[in-house]
C-alpha cells in the first residue's frame, strides 16, 4: 500500500488514481461480497432471484389482474419485470453502499485504503446481481417470442449508465453520512420503498400523464433520473409496448441533462466523502 506523501484530501483525480491503483482489490472485494453472501446456503445464488420473482408474481397477479392495471399494457409481466430489474439495480446500489463503510469497520480502523473502495465494491456486487436478473429477463422475452431486437435496444446503455451514476453519487454521500448518523440506513430503506412507486414500474407512464395532464407536474415526475432510466429500459426491453406505449418527448435529451447533473453531483459528493472520511477510523 503506497500512501506516499500525497495529501489524501487532495482532488477527486488523486482519489480516482488511488482507486485505479487498487482495482484488483476492488474486484476481490466484490467477489468476497458475492461469495460470502450465500456461502453456506444450498441454493446459493438462486436466492438472489427469489425476491424479484416473488415481487413480479405479486405485482403481475395482484396489481395487474386483480386491480386491473394490466389493461392497456401488453405483456404486463415483461413490463413489470423490466422495471423491477432496473429499479433493483438502483435500490441495491443505494442499500449496499449506505451500509458499506459501517460494514467494513474492521478494515477501515486497521488499514489505510482509499475508502471509496468500499461503496464502489457494493456498486460492483449490485451490478453483478443486475446482470443475472437481466439474463433472466432476456430469457423471458425470448420465451414469449418478443426478444428485444429492434432499433431502440441501445436505450439500455444510457439507462443503466444513468442509474450507475446516480447510485454511485448518492451511495458515496450516504455511506459517509451513515457513519456519523446511523439513522440514515433505516431512512434509506423507507425512501427506496417510496421511490419504487414514484416511477412507472407497476403502472404505466401514460396513466400518470392522463392523471397529471401536460404541465410542470408531469415534467417533475418524468425528470426524476430513476423514472428516465426506467422508461429508457422499458423502451429497450419491452417489445410488446412498441407502437402502443407512449413515452415522454425528447427522452434522450432529458437523459443527457440528467447525466450532466449526475456528473456534477458525483464530484460534489466525492468532495463531501473526502472531507468526512478523515474521521471514519475513529467514529465507525
Amino acid at each position, binding site marked *: 500500500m503506497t500512501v506516499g506523501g500525497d495529501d489524501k484530501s487532495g482532488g477527486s483525480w488523486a482519489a480516482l488514481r488511488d482507486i485505479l491503483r487498487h482495482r484488483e*482489490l476492488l474486484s*476481490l472485494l466484490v467477489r468476497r461480497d458475492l461469495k460470502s453472501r450465500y456461502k453456506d446456503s444450498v441454493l446459493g445464488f438462486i436466492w438472489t432471484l427469489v425476491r424479484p420473482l416473488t415481487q413480479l408474481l405479486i405485482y403481475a397477479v395482484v396489481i395487474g389482474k386483480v386491480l386491473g392495471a394490466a389493461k392497456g399494457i401488453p405483456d404486463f409481466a415483461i413490463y413489470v419485470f423490466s422495471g423491477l430489474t432496473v429499479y433493483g439495480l438502483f435500490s441495491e446500489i443505494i442499500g449496499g453502499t449506505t451500509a458499506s463503510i459501517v460494514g467494513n469497520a474492521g478494515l477501515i480502523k486497521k488499514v489505510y485504503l482509499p475508502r471509496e473502495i468500499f461503496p464502489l465494491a457494493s456498486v460492483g456486487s449490485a451490478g453483478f446481481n443486475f446482470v443475472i436478473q437481466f439474463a433472466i429477463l432476456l430469457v423471458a422475452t425470448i420465451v414469449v417470442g418478443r426478444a428485444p431486437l429492434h432499433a431502440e435496444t441501445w436505450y439500455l446503455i444510457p439507462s443503466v449508465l444513468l442509474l450507475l451514476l446516480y447510485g454511485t453519487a448518492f451511495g458515496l454521500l450516504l455511506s459517509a453520512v451513515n457513519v456519523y448518523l446511523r439513522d440514515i440506513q433505516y431512512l434509506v430503506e423507507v425512501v427506496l420503498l417510496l421511490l419504487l412507486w414514484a416511477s412507472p414500474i407497476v403502472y404505466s407512464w401514460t396513466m400518470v400523464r392522463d392523471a397529471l395532464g401536460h404541465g410542470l407536474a408531469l415534467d417533475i415526475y418524468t425528470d426524476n433520473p430513476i423514472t428516465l432510466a426506467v422508461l429508457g429500459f422499458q423502451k429497450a426491453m419491452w417489445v410488446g409496448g412498441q407502437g402502443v406505449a407512449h413515452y415522454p418527448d425528447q427522452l434522450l435529451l432529458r437523459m443527457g441533462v440528467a447525466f450532466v447533473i449526475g456528473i456534477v453531483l458525483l464530484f460534489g459528493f466525492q468532495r463531501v466523502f473526502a472531507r468526512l472520511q478523515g474521521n471514519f477510523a475513529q467514529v465507525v
Partner: protein
Amino acid sequence: MTTDTTTATAAATEDEAPEIVRVRDVSKRFVIRKDNSLKERLVAFGRGRQHREEFWALRHVTIDIRAGHTVALIGHNGSGKSTLLKVIGGIIDPTSGSVARRGRIAALLELGAGFHPDLTGRENVYLNASILGLSRQETEERFDEILGFSGIGDFIDTQVKFYSSGMYVRLAFAVAVHTDPDLLLVDEVLAVGDEAFQRKCLDKIRSFQDEGRTIILVTHNLGQVTELADRAILLNKGEVVYDGEPGGAVTEFRKVLEGRRVLEAEAEAAVQTAKHGPVSVEHGTVVEARAWADGRAVGDPVQPGDDLRIEITLEHETGIEDWKCAIQIDNTLGQPVYGTTTERIGAEVSRLKERQTVAFLLRDARFGAGKYFVNASLMDRAGRHLSDKPQACSFDVPYYPLAIGMVHSVPEVVEPSA
C-alpha cells in the same frame, strides 16, 4: 550482544539514511459523542456541548524516522502510542500538523483485520494480500512461502471461521510479513501464537532489520524494546517525553509507571478510607537498597562464586503486621534474571513500622558478565505492592572472555563420552 551491534550500525548510517516518515507538530483531538441517533441529537441540540467530551490523544508530536531503523513506541495504556502509529499509517488524519511518508507501508495493527470468516484460508490470503498492496500475481508467487510460514497445511481450504485463534493469527501474520513492505507498523501483535511461532516472528523481524527495512512497533514488552529496537520513543498523555536510546526510555518509562502506580494507590487508599476508615495500605516505603559481594566493598565487581548480599531498608508509616519483601534482579535489557521473596524463603517477619533492614544473602551467585539492576518491593500479605523501587541499586560482574550470557559457568572442550 544483538543490541550493541544494531545500535552501532544505526549510528553509522544516521546521516546518510533517508527519512521515511516525517511527523510535524501533530496533534489529534478525539471527540466522544454520547448521543448517536437522530432522536438523541435533536433532544440534546438545545443543550449545547454537554453531550460531547473531547481529549487530546496527541499533542505537538514531532518525530523523524530514518530508513533502516527499528523504533519502539512505549507508554502506558492511553498514552497515545497506538494513535500515533495510526496517524503514521494514514489510518487517522491528525487534527493539526502534517505527516509525510514514503514507500510501501504494511500495518500490522490487528492481525487478520481483513479476514472474512466465511471465506476459505486461501481466498482470505489473496484478499488480505491485496489489502496490503500486493498484486494477484505477486501473491501467487509467494503463496507457497506464505502457506509454509503459517504452518496451516491442509486447512488452507477451510473457511477461516473454523480456525482456532492461533491458526487465524498465524495465517494473518504470514501474509503480512510477506508483503515486502518498506515500513512495517506493528501494534502488539508479537505476543500471539505459541512459543515456536513467536520465535519465527521475531526471526522474521530480525531479517527485516537485516534487509534494512524500517519498523515501528508498539509494545508493552520492555524486554522486546531493548532487544529489537535501536531507538525508543516514550509517550505520556500524548506528548513525547523521551526520544532516544531504548535503555534510557525503558528506565524513564519505569519511573512514569511508578509515578502512576503511586497516584493510583493513593486514589485507591482514599476510596478505601472513605469506605472503611483508615487502612494500613499505602504507607509503606522501600527506603533504599544496596548490593555487594560479601567480603568486598560496595561498588566492587561481583566475582562468580561470591556470596551476593542485598540489603533492603523498609519503613511503614502506620505499621503493618504481615508483610513480605521481594527482590528481582534484571539484566540491562530489562529481562528478569533472578527473583525471590521473604515468603518464598520462609523467613519470619516482625511488625514493620520504624525503619527495618532485610538482608538477603545469595550464596555462590554465578552471574554472567554485565551490569545487573536490583528491583525491590514491599508487599502486603495478599501480594499487593505497597512500594516498589525499580533499579534500586546495581552491581557489575566483570567481563568473562570464555562465554556470554546471564549465567556463569566455566566451559571447556573435552573428549566425547562415547
